C-alpha cells in the first residue's frame, strides 16, 4: 500500500516536472550584424516568428558589424561556447565551410528549390550547402531624373560606360553666381564597385580555385583607367576622399543636394535614398563595358550549433524568414533583394514593384550577377586594392603601376589564405 502511494507521488512529481520541460521552446541564440533601422526590422520579424509558434524561441542579439560577429563567434567557438546561428558577410560562408567551422546543412532536409540560384550559389562549397542567403544586396546606379531632364537627356539611365561618359559631360556644369558646380558621376573607391567594373571591362579579380590575383591584367587596368579619366581627363566625375563610411556619407550628401547626378550605391540604401532625395530619383543597372556584370553583397546566415535539436529549430526560423511571404516583407521594408523566387513573382511583390518601379531594378539586374571570389574577404587584399584605387583616383598615379604593385603586395596574403583554408 505504502509503495503504491509512493509510486503515485513519484509519478505525479515526474509529470509535474517533465511537462513544463517538454513544452519549453528550444532556444536558438542568434547573433545578428544589423543595427539601426535595418536591425529594427529584423528584430521585429524575429519577434513575430517567436510569437507565431511555441516550439522555437530565437534569442536574437545585435553583436556589432559582420566582422565583429565573426571574430566574436570564432573566439567563442574556440572557447567551446559558440552561438547557435550567426549572420555573416556573404562571401564568408565558403571560408567557414573550408575551415570546418560550419557543417553542411544536409541533415536538415531544407527545400532550396525556391531560392534564387545566383544568390544561393555562394553558400555552396564542394557541392554541399553550408549557409542560406539572408539579407542580400547588389550595387545599383542611382540617378537624379530632374538633372537628366534639365540636361536634355530624357528619363533613362546610361546603358554603357561610353554612354555614362557622354551623359556625365552634359551633366557637369561649373559654378555660377547663384548655383553650385555640378558633375556627372561619383562612386566611393571601394573593392565592391571596382570588382563590378573589372568584370564589366572583361577582367577578373582572381582565380577562385587557386587564389591567384588577376586584377593587374588588361581588363582591370582598362577599367581603372576609364574611371580615372572620368575624373582627371574629362573632369566629369569626382572621387570622395576619406575612410569608406565617410566617403559614402559625402557621396550621398552630394547626391541629395543635387551636386552629382549619378552615383553607385547598394540596394540596401534604396529606402534611405527614397526618403532623402528632394527630386525624382531613378535607378538603373550598373553600366556595361564589354559585358554586363555585377557582384552581390550583404549577409548570409549559418548555423554553428552541432546539436541536432537546435539545428532543426534554427532551420525552422530560416525557413520561415526566407519563405515567399516573409522574404517579400523583408525586401519591401528594407530594399534588400527577395532571396526567394516565388516571393519575387508574388502578387504582393509585383504590386509593390508597380508602385515603386525603382525597387524592381535590383531583381532584374540579378541576371548579370556573378559570385564574388573568396579573396574579397581577405582584409589585406581589400585594403591593398582600395589604397591603390585611392592612389589612382585621388593621387593621379598610373593605374597599371598601382595595380601591379597592389597584386605584388597582397599576393602573399592570398596565398596564405588559400593554404590555410
Amino acid at each position, binding site marked *: 500500500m505504502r509503495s503504491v502511494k509512493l509510486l503515485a507521488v513519484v509519478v505525479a512529481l515526474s509529470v509535474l516536472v517533465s511537462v513544463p520541460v517538454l513544452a519549453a521552446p528550444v532556444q536558438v541564440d542568434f547573433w545578428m550584424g*544589423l*543595427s539601426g533601422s535595418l536591425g529594427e526590422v529584423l528584430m521585429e520579424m524575429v519577434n513575430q516568428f517567436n510569437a507565431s509558434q511555441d516550439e522555437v524561441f530565437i534569442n536574437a542579439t545585435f553583436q*556589432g*558589424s559582420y566582422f565583429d560577429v565573426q571574430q566574436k563567434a570564432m*573566439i567563442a567557438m574556440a572557447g567551446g*561556447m559558440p552561438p547557435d546561428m550567426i549572420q555573416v558577410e556573404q562571401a564568408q560562408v565558403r571560408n567557414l565551410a573550408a575551415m570546418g567551422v560550419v557543417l553542411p546543412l544536409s541533415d536538415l532536409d531544407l527545400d532550396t528549390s525556391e531560392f534564387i540560384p545566383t544568390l544561393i550559389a555562394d553558400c555552396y562549397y564542394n557541392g554541399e550547402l553550408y549557409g542560406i542567403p539572408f539579407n542580400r544586396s547588389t550595387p545599383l546606379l542611382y540617378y537624379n531624373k530632374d538633372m537628366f531632364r534639365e540636361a536634355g537627356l530624357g528619363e533613362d539611365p546610361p546603358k554603357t560606360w561610353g554612354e555614362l561618359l557622354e551623359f556625365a559631360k552634359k551633366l557637369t556644369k561649373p559654378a555660377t553666381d547663384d548655383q553650385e558646380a555640378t558633375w556627372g558621376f561619383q562612386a566611393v573607391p571601394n573593392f565592391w564597385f571596382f570588382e563590378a567594373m573589372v568584370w564589366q571591362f572583361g577582367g577578373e579579380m582572381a582565380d577562385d580555385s587557386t587564389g591567384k590575383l588577376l586584377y593587374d591584367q588588361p581588363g582591370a587596368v582598362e577599367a581603372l583607367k576609364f574611371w580615372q579619366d572620368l575624373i582627371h581627363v574629362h573632369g566629369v566625375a569626382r572621387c570622395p576622399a576619406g575612410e569608406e*563610411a565617410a566617403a559614402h*556619407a559625402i557621396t550621398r*550628401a552630394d547626391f541629395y543636394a543635387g551636386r552629382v547626378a549619378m552615383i553607385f550605391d547598394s540596394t540596401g540604401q534604396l529606402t534611405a535614398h527614397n526618403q532623402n532625395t528632394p527630386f525624382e530619383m531613378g535607378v538603373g543597372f550598373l553600366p556595361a563595358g564589354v559585358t554586363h556584370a555585377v557582384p552581390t553583397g550583404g549577409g548570409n546566415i549559418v548555423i554553428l550549433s552541432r546539436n541536432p535539436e537546435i539545428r532543426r529549430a534554427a532551420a525552422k526560423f530560416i525557413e520561415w524568414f526566407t519563405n515567399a511571404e516573409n522574404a517579400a516583407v523583408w525586401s519591401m521594408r528594407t530594399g534588400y533583394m527577395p532571396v526567394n523566387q516565388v516571393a519575387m513573382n508574388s502578387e504582393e511583390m509585383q504590386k509593390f514593384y508597380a508602385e515603386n518601379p525603382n525597387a524592381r531594378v535590383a531583381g532584374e539586374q540579378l541576371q548579370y550577377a556573378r559570385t564574388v571570389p573568396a579573396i574579397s574577404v581577405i582584409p589585406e587584399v581589400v585594403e591593398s586594392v582600395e589604397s591603390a584605387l585611392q592612389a589612382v583616383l585621388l593621387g593621379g598615379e598610373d593605374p597599371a603601376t598601382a595595380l601591379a604593385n597592389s597584386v605584388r603586395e597582397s599576393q602573399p596574403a592570398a596565398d596564405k589564405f588559400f593554404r590555410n583554408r
Partner: protein
Amino acid sequence: MRGKTIVVHGLLIIISLIIVLPMIWMVLGSLKTIQEFLSKPPLWIPPRPAWENYVEVLKAAPFGLFFRNSLVVAIVVVTSQLLTAALAGYALAWINVPGRNLIFGIILATMMIPAHATAVPSFLILRRLGWIDSLQALMVPFLAQGFAVFLMRQAFLVIPVELVESAKLDGAGHLRILFSIMLPLAKPAAITVVVLSAVATWNNYFWPLIFTNSTKYRTLPLGLAMFRSQEGMAQWNLLMAASMIVVTPMMLLFLIGQRYFIEGISRTGLKG
C-alpha cells in the same frame, strides 16, 4: 627673448587648435541636424542647437544602463588596480624577497602580451567559472595590471630610505608604512595609475564585445557601435551626441587629474 616667446606660444596655440579641432567638431556636430551635419561647405555653428539629438540617443539605446555598467566596471577595476599595484609595488621596491627581480621581470612581461592573444584562454577560464556574459567577466581579468605595478614600484623607489627607517623604528608595519607614508608621497604616480586604467577600461571595446552577449551587461563603447549601421546610413549627428556622453566623464577625470598626471609621468620617467 620676447620675440622667441611669441613664436613659441604662437606655434603651441596652433598645434593645440589642431589637436582640439576634432573635439570641437564633435561638440558642434552633436548639436546639428543630419542635413546640417552633411552640408557643404561645412557648417560650423548650427543656427539652432539640436538638443533633441541627446534625447534621441537616450531613447535609441539603453545608454543609462550602459553608463551604469561602464561606471561599475571602471570603479571596481581602477580601485583594484591601484590597490594591487600599491601592494605589489611596495613589496617589489622595499621587501627583500628571493627572486624579486625575476618576479618583477615576469610582471613586466605581461605588459607585452596583447589582449587578443589571451582572449581564447581567458574565454576557457571564464567559461569554467560560468562567467561568460556577466559583469565579472569584464572586471576580474583586470584586477591587477603590470604597468600599474611598474609605475608604483618606480615611484616608491625614489622615496628616501630614511623615511622608511624612521617609521620602522617607531614600530610601523609594512601596511602602515605603505598607506601612511608611501602612498601619500607617491600621489602623482597613483593618480597616473587611476587615469590610465580608467581610460583603458572605459574605452575597451574588444573585451566586452567578446565576453558579453546580452544588452544588460553591455558597456558604452558597444552602445556607440549601435549607431554605426552595416550598409545602412550612419546617423552621424547622433553618433556625435552619443560620443559626447561617452567621453565627457573621462575628460573630466583627465582635467582633474592632469596636474598630477604630468608630474607622475615625468618623475617616473627620470628616475628608477
